[in-house]
């Protein structure tokens, strides 16, 4: 639920008991005031009646209303009466009950005891209630409307810096290594939020940079000792005193050193791609790269007897770093050759929207998601470094391309989408 909905709901919940209280209070006050007013009128009426009695010729009953609510009645004796009361009378005209306020009082004149009864139509509580409910409904509606408008305005204006901060965080890419410039805000809380976020991102950037520099430096530092080992092995294998046993040991070392070199090189390459160190961008013709890679790997894997086919539609020229473009194409094509079966086939389809490379081969025993992760490799490829597709992925990410892998009917298929 949005914050604005929550606050509106909260105001709404609070306003209900407040309005109920206000309703009850208003009703009782109005009721009292109206009754007081009626009673005052009845009192004046009574005084008029007393004047009437004084002007009468003799003592007699006078009924001014059929229901004897306004009447002068001669009493047999003295009676202490002075009351205000409410009465309900059926009214034929109105076809309904009407409320009356009745004032009864005792009056003594010329030796005669009188009961004076006067009445006035009383207040219609139901009508008052209805009126009040109507009024309160309007007030309630207006309140809701103003809560809502206020909240929308507040959210538009007051929460603007917050939304801007959120937007910037959303769009933030740590790889760009740039600091986020938050919009200044006059709201204290948002200023605090921005300051905290500022500190946090700076820390993240500095840690990230250190970590990247570490990987790069470590890889560079490894090159020299590796060069030493390699050179010593090169010298050692020249020795004429070596027997087959020693040579076998040396071969193991030689291969291991070669593998470390290759790993180190690939890791360094990955770091450089991720650090955006391949800055130069120019128009690269992918057809040329695909053809060159096929020539290279057909040669290298000629023992496997793989047939390759290409289908080019239109010119595919992309603005890329030439080294990365070459790495992307050659890694994918090498992959299609390496993980192919004997006398298998591979096919490259290229058009300006996408590159599809498919090859025959046994199914993977790792999941397709893991395929692009570093050092994840299929069981059948123990000798492989497990970095080729990671390099492909990081180039894809650098250029915002998409890559998909599917395995259908014995065919591995990689689809690179350029948009």
């Amino acid at each position, binding site marked *: 639920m949005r914050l604005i909905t929550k606050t509106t709901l909260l105001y709404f919940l609070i306003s209900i008991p407040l309005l109920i209280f206000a309703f009850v209070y208003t009703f009782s006050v109005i009721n009292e005031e109206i009754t007081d007013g009626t009673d005052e009128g009845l009192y004046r009426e009574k005084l008029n009646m007393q004047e009437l009695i004084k002007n009468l010729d003799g003592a007699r009953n006078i009924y001014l209303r059929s229901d004897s609510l306004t009447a002068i009645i001669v009493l047999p004796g003295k009676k202490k009466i002075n009351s205000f009361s409410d009465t309900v009378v059926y009214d034929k005209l109105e076809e309904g009950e009407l409320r009356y306020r009745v004032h009864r009082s005792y009056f003594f004149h010329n030796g005669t005891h009188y009961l004076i009864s006067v009445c006035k139509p009383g207040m219609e509580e139901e009508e008052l209630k209805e009126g009040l409910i109507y009024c309160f409904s309007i007030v309630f509606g207006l309140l809701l409307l103003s809560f809502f408008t206020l909240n929308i305005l507040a959210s538009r204006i007051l929460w603007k810096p917050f939304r801007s901060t959120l937007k910037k965080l959303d769009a933030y890419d740590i790889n760009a290594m740039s600091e986020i410039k938050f919009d200044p805000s006059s709201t204290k809380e948002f200023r605090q939020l921005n300051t905290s976020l500022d500190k946090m991102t700076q820390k993240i950037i500095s840690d990230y940079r250190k970590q990247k520099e570490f990987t790069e430096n470590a890889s560079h530092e490894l*090159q020299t000792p590796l*060069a030493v080992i*390699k050179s*010593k092995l*090169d010298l050692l*294998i*020249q020795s004429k005193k070596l027997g087959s046993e020693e040579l076998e040991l040396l071969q193991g070392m030689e291969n291991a050193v*070669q593998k470390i070199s290759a790993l180190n090189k690939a890791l360094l390459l990955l770091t450089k791609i991720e650090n955006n160190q391949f800055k130069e961008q120019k128009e690269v013709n992918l057809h040329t790269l695909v053809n060159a890679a096929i020539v290279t790997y057909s040669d*290298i894997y000629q*023992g496997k007897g793989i047939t390759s086919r290409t289908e080019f539609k239109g010119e595919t020229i992309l603005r890329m770093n030439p080294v990365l473009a070459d790495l992307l194409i050659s890694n994918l094509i090498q992959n299609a050759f390496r993980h192919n079966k004997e006398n298998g086939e591979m096919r490259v389809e290229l058009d300006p929207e996408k590159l599809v490379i498919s090859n025959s081969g046994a199914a993977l025993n790792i999941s397709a998601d893991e395929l692009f992760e570093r050092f994840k490799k299929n069981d059948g490829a123990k000798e492989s470094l497990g970095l080729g597709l990671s390099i492909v992925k990081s180039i894809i990410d650098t250029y915002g391309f998409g890559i998909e892998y599917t395995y259908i009917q014995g065919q591995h298929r990689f689809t690179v989408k350029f948009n």
Partner: protein
Amino acid sequence: MKILLVEDEPELRRSIKQFLYEEGYVVESADDFAKATEKAADYDYDCVLVDITLPKGNGLDIVKQLKKNNSKAGIIIISAKNSLDDKITGLDLGADDYLPKPFHLSELNARIKALIRRRNFDGNQSINLNEITILPEERRVKVKNEEVSLTTKEYDLLLYFVSNKNRVVSKNSIAEHLMGDHADQADSHDFIYTHLKNLRKKLSEKGCKDYVQTIYGIGYNFKTEG
């Protein structure tokens, strides 16, 4: 042939010195920037090997100095940084080649030989080895004066062997030499074997002696002496 080696890592310096000495070169070495510039200024060399990262200086400045003094020496940069920028800068400054660490000594040897060949004879020189004649400029090979038609890889393999003749060259170094960045241990041995088989066949068809000796698992020796 005189070579100046500028390298600060003592063990690597020793290895390179020993290997090149056995190839018959006179090798002078310098372990820091000052000594290197001094030696480069005082003597003439056929070839200078320069490490880029040096104590108290940058190897690229040595390249600059050599070029300023109109040195005739060929220059090979050996660097731990396999960066394209360094490579381009180095070559722009006038270096002839760029070899990233870690490298095989046989690769370094082949590069030095190619460089010296290009420099001293403008490439118009044939390499004669018993019945084999290689014309590097035209990438042609003759056996007993008869043309042998080789593929690019077979030619590269032969030249690599000849450059490192009477030396054991490891399979890995051959793979790196022939395949460059595409080298992959898993697949390279079959690859070398196939090309070597074809090369041997083509050479022997023309009556060439089989000089290639297999050194148990590890590599080969192109043996022209006893």
